[in-house]
Every structure is written in structure tokens, then in C-alpha cells.
């Protein structure tokens, strides 16, 4: 709350978020910030497609003066329907109704690679692999990290086995819940899935809990 106020955000503000816009790790920062604001109850938030890189590619005005914002009157109203906790993830693993979506690399999903700080290999049972990388055009002909077209995104959802029913309960996760922010943004804010949560603790938390199941050496399949 304090941070939002210091940044000059008011209850009435329309917040536009942008990032460096160059690589996937840029786009995920912006998208995760959107998720954080939405989870804090501030729904009037947008994401600048392609970030600063696209802004400069199009020759828009830039400056180097750091603005000093007037403190805002932002009030958080936590919206827990957008965030999943470990207990909920535990229950969802067993209900066979929740579709988990893994935003990490295919190697991490398959369990042949992992980040050093993640305790174990593999993916949460009931996950499908939708690498955040595949959702933007970052790097293609030096393109900024613009999000792929609606048509392509819909095709990708079909191609990775996302349920057609947009009200299916979905939990997105990655290693530290940064990349998952982009999957959240694409599913929730672009494609209109209505029941999407990001698992805040993600694999950093999950893999350290030894009795939580992980699937290794297999591609995840849809729960239904």
C-alpha cells in the first residue's frame, strides 16, 4: 500500500504499466505488476504492449527527468480470487478439476533441468506446459516483446491442451511467480478466462514441501 501511494496512485487512477519490452523477462515484469495491482483490488490497470522498446522504435518522445509523484490515496482491497496459496494448491492437485498451467521452460516442466534454488525436478500433477516464452514475439527479427495476436494465442491454447471452457478453474505457476504473471495476464485479461489464479509461492515453495507430488520425465496432460 505504502509503495503504491508513494508512486502517486490514487483510487481513481488508470495505471499503465510498461517494462523494457525487449525480452521475455521484461514482459513478465510488467505482466506480473498488472496481476499484483489486480490482486490488490485495483482493476483500472493496463499494460503497454512492447514496452519501452516499442515506444522508442516508434520514435515517441522520451526524457530522462525522474518525476516526483504527489502521494496518492490508494486503498488496497485484496482480491484473493486471483491468488492461490499452498493449501489451495494442495486441494486442487487432488480435485482433478483444476487445470494447472506451467509457465516455465519445457526442460524444467519435463524435469531434465531446474533452477538451483528449486528443490526438486518436475511439474505439479495435472499441469500442462505453456512456456511464457511462447506468448510474445520477443527477439523475432529483433521485435520488441509484444504479445502475440489473439488469433495466435487462441491457437496456442488449443495446441497446449487448455480447456475450451473459459470458466474452468486454472492455477498458473512457474519458479517464483514472475513468468506465471504473463500467463495470468494472457489468460485472464486478454483471452477472458474467468477463473484464473497465480500461485504466489510457485515451485520455490511447492518443491520444498517434500510430500507434495511432482511428475518427472513426462509431458503434462490436461486434467480433463
Amino acid at each position: 500500500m505504502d509503495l503504491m501511494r508513494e508512486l502517486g496512485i490514487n483510487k481513481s487512477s488508470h495505471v499503465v504499466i510498461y517494462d523494457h519490452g525487449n525480452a521475455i523477462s521484461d514482459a513478465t515484469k510488467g505482466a506480473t505488476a498488472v496481476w499484483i495491482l489486480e490482486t490488490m483490488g485495483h482493476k483500472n490497470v493496463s499494460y503497454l504492449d512492447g514496452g519501452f522498446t516499442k515506444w522508442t522504435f516508434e520514435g515517441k518522445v522520451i526524457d530522462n527527468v525522474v518525476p516526483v509523484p504527489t502521494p496518492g490515496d490508494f486503498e488496497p482491497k485484496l482480491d484473493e480470487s486471483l491468488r492461490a496459496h499452498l493449501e489451495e494448491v494442495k486441494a486442487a492437485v487432488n480435485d482433478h478439476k483444476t487445470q494447472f498451467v506451467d509457465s516455465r521452460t519445457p526442460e524444467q516442466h519435463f524435469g531434465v533441468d531446474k533452477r538451483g534454488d528449486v528443490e526438486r525436478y518436475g511439474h505439479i500433477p495435472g499441469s500442462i506446459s505453456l512456456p511464457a516464452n511462447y506468448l510474445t514475439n520477443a527477439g523475432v527479427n529483433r521485435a520488441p516483446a509484444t504479445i502475440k495476436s489473439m488469433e495466435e494465442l487462441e491457437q496456442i491454447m488449443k495446441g497446449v491442451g487448455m480447456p475450451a471452457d473459459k470458466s474452468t478453474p486454472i492455477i498458473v505457476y512457474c519458479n517464483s511467480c514472475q513468468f506465471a504473471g504473463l500467463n495470468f495476464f494472457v489468460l485472464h485479461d486478454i483471452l477472458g478466462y474467468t477463473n484464473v489464479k497465480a500461485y504466489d509461492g510457485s515451485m520455490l515453495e511447492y518443491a520444498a514441501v517434500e510430500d507434495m507430488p511432482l511428475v518427472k520425465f513426462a509431458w503434462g496432460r490436461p486434467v480433463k
Partner: protein
Amino acid sequence: MNMTKKMRVYIVIALVSMFALPGLGLAAGDALVSVGWLAGNLQKKDLVILDVGAFTHYEKNHIPGAVKAFGPWQTMNDGFVGFMMPKTEDLVQMLRDYGVNNESFVVVYDEGVTVKDTAKSARALWTLHALGHDKVAILDGGYAAWERENKPAATVMTVPMAGNFTADFKADKVATLAEVKSKVGSGKALFLDTRIPEEHFGHEKVSHIKRFGHLPGAKLWPDKYMTNAGVDFAPSYFKDIYELKDMAAGVGIPADKNAEIITYSNHGKSAAVGYFVLHDILGYTNVKIYDGSLLEYAPLKDLAMDTNGWGFMSR
């Protein structure tokens, strides 16, 4: 606890192999030899060691007695498609020059650093299989493993005696374009893509492959998941058979060992790693390589390729 379980499995295997009957032919796993085995058998009668790595590497260091054998193992065919199996008579001449006889037990090895190195050996092994020569094995981990175990290196080039190798071409090892056309999407054969997930998905491609994506319905098992190359600086050792078995199931390879499987990649080289793992480690009997692979397939616009998805998700 894992170790104990693993050791128990090894003991069972050791017992089983003690009672294995002679004359059963090559059992699964025999086509992969270790540094220890090769070092102890360098003087073995009928052994031919082929170094299929880059010739610059051979000239610097190689296994004593190994023949410089960098190929060409793949050339342009009559249809001007590159990276295809050369004509049989050319291969026969090349193998004779390398000193290969019909009685030879051929061990192929490569630099052994990455799976791209291993693919050279796998392609050479498959080529010999296609020429009807089954007495061939890959040195696990290649030269990197040899070096890591402090085995002696030679710098003087081996000059082999000309061999008497003759070919008995096995057409069932090679999937042609016509065969692929008739089988793709038909459910008659399982197609296995051994490229990286990004290429399979159609998010990336190498520039000389004309289109993005994969053969409709193809399963995905990247060759680099099949070895331990780079894990804690390891040479490109194949993963152990239990891990490979798990993965085969996990990527959707049927349990039926007679299922028809066609592996492919960009140039049919990485596809050979898939061939080797399925045929020689896991014991699948009906595996072939689509020799033309995407280099041949992708430019043919009337042939379907799927993008923006995983082949294993399609029905």
C-alpha cells in the same frame, strides 16, 4: 535409498545376464560400450574404432588405433536435398577405406561433449544398420569420457588395411518421403520429433528449414533429454535405461515394442539419437529414420505442418 534400489536392480541384471543364452543376438544395451570396456579391448580381434568427430579434433587427439572417419556420412541426394544417406556403393567404398570388414565389430565415437556430438555417432551406427551391419556400438560419452578417465591418447594417424565390407541394404531402416506422405497423420506409424521444444512448437526454427512447426501428431522427445551432456560438466553419456524407459512412456511412446516408429529432426542427424535410444537401448524392433527430415518435408507446401501447439496434444 535411491542408490540401494539402483544397486539392487544392477544385481538382478547381472544375475540375469549370467544365465543369458548365447546366440540370442544383440540384446538391448549391447550397442553402447563403456570407456572401461573399450580400453580393455583395444587389441581385440576384428575391432574397428571409427572416430566420426571433426577431423581437426582427430588430428589433435584420438583413441589409439582409431580411424579418422568424419565421412561424409550425409550428402546431397539426386533431388538436391542435403544431408541424406549417400549412395550405398559410396558408403561401401568409404567403409572399406576405413578398414571395415564384414566380421568387424565397429565402435564409433565422437567428441562426446554435447548431444550434437553424440548424434554423429548415432547417425553412423544407423547407417551401418541400414547397410546390414549390426555389429556396431557407440562409445558412451565419446572422447570426452575417454579423456575424463585418463586413457591414453594418440596423435599419429591410423592407416588401416583396406576392408572387405559388403552391404546388405535394409530398406526398412529408412523412411522415404513417399512413405512419410502415406503415413503422416494416418495413425499407422508414430512420428517422433527429436528437435528442441521451441522448434517443435513452431516458436522458432533454423533459417534454412522452410516452415515452422512439426509433423501432425508427432510426439516430442528432444535428443538432448536423452543424455547427461553438460550436467555437472558430464560428457554426453546416455541416461540410464530406467530413466529412458520412464521418458519413453512420458512422451507417449507405446509400450508395444513392435510399434512402428519414424524419427525425424531437421537433418536426420538428431533423429538418429532417437533411433539409437529406441532401437538399441530400449529394444523397439521397428524404428526407422525419415532421412529427408524437415529439410526435405518443409518446402513441400501441400504437406501439413502444425504450429502453435504440442504434437502430443492432438488426437
